[in-house]
């Protein structure tokens, strides 16, 4: 199941190396401050979990790292070089791939076209030269089989696959095309228990292959299963930033559920 990942993972990655570093990063949309003073390090071979309620700033954070929206405060460094992404293409060129919960794939397109979308194999570099259709179908089918996703027909629209399978295709695609940092945006939010398990195994496999993984979720249980480092966001600021050894599941759950506010609330609602 981990064949694809270990085969295609970048061999120059060394465990614990800092791949992406955010220092005092903030983001304003006009007068609204979506994110403030975030410090985060994504290390090779580690899963960094970013937790937070709706509106906490998780999406803004990944949009900055994945190049959808540039940050306007602080510094973002990739492999020790300061960068300022203006498009997802630039982030991809730095080896940062993002798998989004709801927009991972184009539903009406065939599985193999989705697998190669944005990185198609063509017969030559001339514009409008033909795609190597047979080869693309073969590679997509093989890579998916290696990770235990057996599609009935590689020509079927990807929208017909289950949600978990679609997430896995998107992850496999990112790794196959040489991602060094993998950002997973709520990969388990819309999935059932069994399918979440498949995605989590996948996340762990990517970590073991030496990739730096950023795992965004609002489920502390899922985070604790794979995480090495935990950051909890609240109203655009980090309220908790701890290694696995410094925090236990209870604390994560309590913080996520509202922490001290919850204690207060339970006082008020006492009956």
């Amino acid at each position, binding site marked *: 199941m981990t064949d694809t990942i270990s085969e295609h993972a970048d061999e120059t990655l060394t465990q614990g190396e800092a791949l992406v570093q955010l220092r005092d990063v903030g983001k304003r949309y006009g007068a609204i401050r979506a994110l403030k003073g975030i410090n985060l390090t994504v290390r090779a071979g580690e899963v960094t979990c970013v937790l937070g309620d709706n509106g906490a700033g998780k999406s803004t954070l990944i949009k900055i790292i994945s190049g959808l929206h540039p940050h306007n405060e602080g510094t973002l460094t990739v492999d020790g070089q300061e960068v300022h992404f203006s498009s*997802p293409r630039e982030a991809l060129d730095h080896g940062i791939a993002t798998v989004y919960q709801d927009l991972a794939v184009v539903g*009406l397109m065939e599985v193999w076209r989705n697998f190669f979308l944005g990185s198609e194999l063509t017969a030559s570099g001339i514009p409008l030269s*033909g795609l190597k259709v047979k080869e693309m179908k073969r590679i997509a089918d093989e890579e998916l*089989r*290696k990770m*235990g996703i057996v599609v009935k027909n590689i020509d079927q629209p990807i929208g*017909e696959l289950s949600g978990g399978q679609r997430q896995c295709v998107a992850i496999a695609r990112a790794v196959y095309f040489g991602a060094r940092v993998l950002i997973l945006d709520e990969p388990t939010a819309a999935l059932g228990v069994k399918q979440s398990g498949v995605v989590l195994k996948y996340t762990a496999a990517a970590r073991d292959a030496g990739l730096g993984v950023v795992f965004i979720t609002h489920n502390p249980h899922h985070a604790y299963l794979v995480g090495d480092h935990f950051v909890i966001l609240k109203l655009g600021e980090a309220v908790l930033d701890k290694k696995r050894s410094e925090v236990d599941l209870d604390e994560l759950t309590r913080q996520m559920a509202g922490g001290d506010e919850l204690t207060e609330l339970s006082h008020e609602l006492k009956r």
Partner: protein
Amino acid sequence: MSQTSEKQRSTETPSEASNRVQVGLLGRALARPEIGALVAAIVIGIFFLVVAPPFRSAESLATVLYQSATIGIVAVAVGMLMIGGEFDLSAGVMVASAGLFASMFSYQYNLNLWIGALLSLVFALAIGFLNGYLVMKTGIASFLITLGTFFILQGANLGVTKLVTGSVSTPNINQMNGYASLEKIFSSTFQVGSVRVSIIVVWWFVFVAIASWVLLRTKIGNWIYAVGGNQASARAVGVPVVRVKIGLFMTVSFLAWFMGMHTLYRFNTIQAGNGVGNEFLYIIAAVVGGTLLTGGYGNAIGAAIGSFIFGMTSLCIVYAGWDPNWFRAFLGVMLLLAVLVNLYVKKLSTTRKVG
């Protein structure tokens, strides 16, 4: 349950394709976007062969093909644009604008017609670019932006023509330099057996073939389906969404220019009010051909068949001796039927079969 068993199987035989479901010929045919239109074209064809005797000749077929091509050429580009998730309502009047520009520019400055034709191409591409640029930069629906250009061009066509020539049509250009060569390219005819066929039919086939190749066999085609199917996903995997969409708008304006040149060299003059309403015919041709109104689905052959249905009915109603005023009503019925058939067929072909 099935997931675990599938996984076990795949670890045992990782690259064997034995469990691949073979989709039958019928299933594969049903999954194609143009199938509904093809069936409709055959049914309508047989119907008119029965009720309209003059239709049963090679000559009529050539005329029908010509009529189809006049819509079909721009419809191919409009179909591609719709697959890419956008509309262009200015395509109809742009045909007239391109012709007017080329004709009047050459005539007023007494230049070789080639110069007018080339400048007109630049002008058309600029409008296409502007359409695309405005849609992408403002985020306003292309329906509204191009509705704006539609009215601007419609007004300017009449206004400028009146200002320059003093009437609502352009002067005859058939005595000017470059006429012969341009006429040969855009509006000559050739003999096939006993029938004269317009070169525009050949051009139509060529453009359909190119569009088909681009859509199904190239990187750009993959990107067109992706930006229409799910723009955010496409952008996230590095597809240059803005460039793809602006390119599509410019393709529409290129073929609108081409059609404008044909109109000009066929009649040697252009009426300033030409083309209004044709934008809907292009859209109907594409939709009848299986293009999804919301983008991401369809193909070039479908748009061609849609145009053929248009050409066939518009002429056969006359051949059958009916009042041609009914034509538009028929077109509306066709559109509704096409949408229903497409919906039904798509449901059939995308339903997961047990197995």
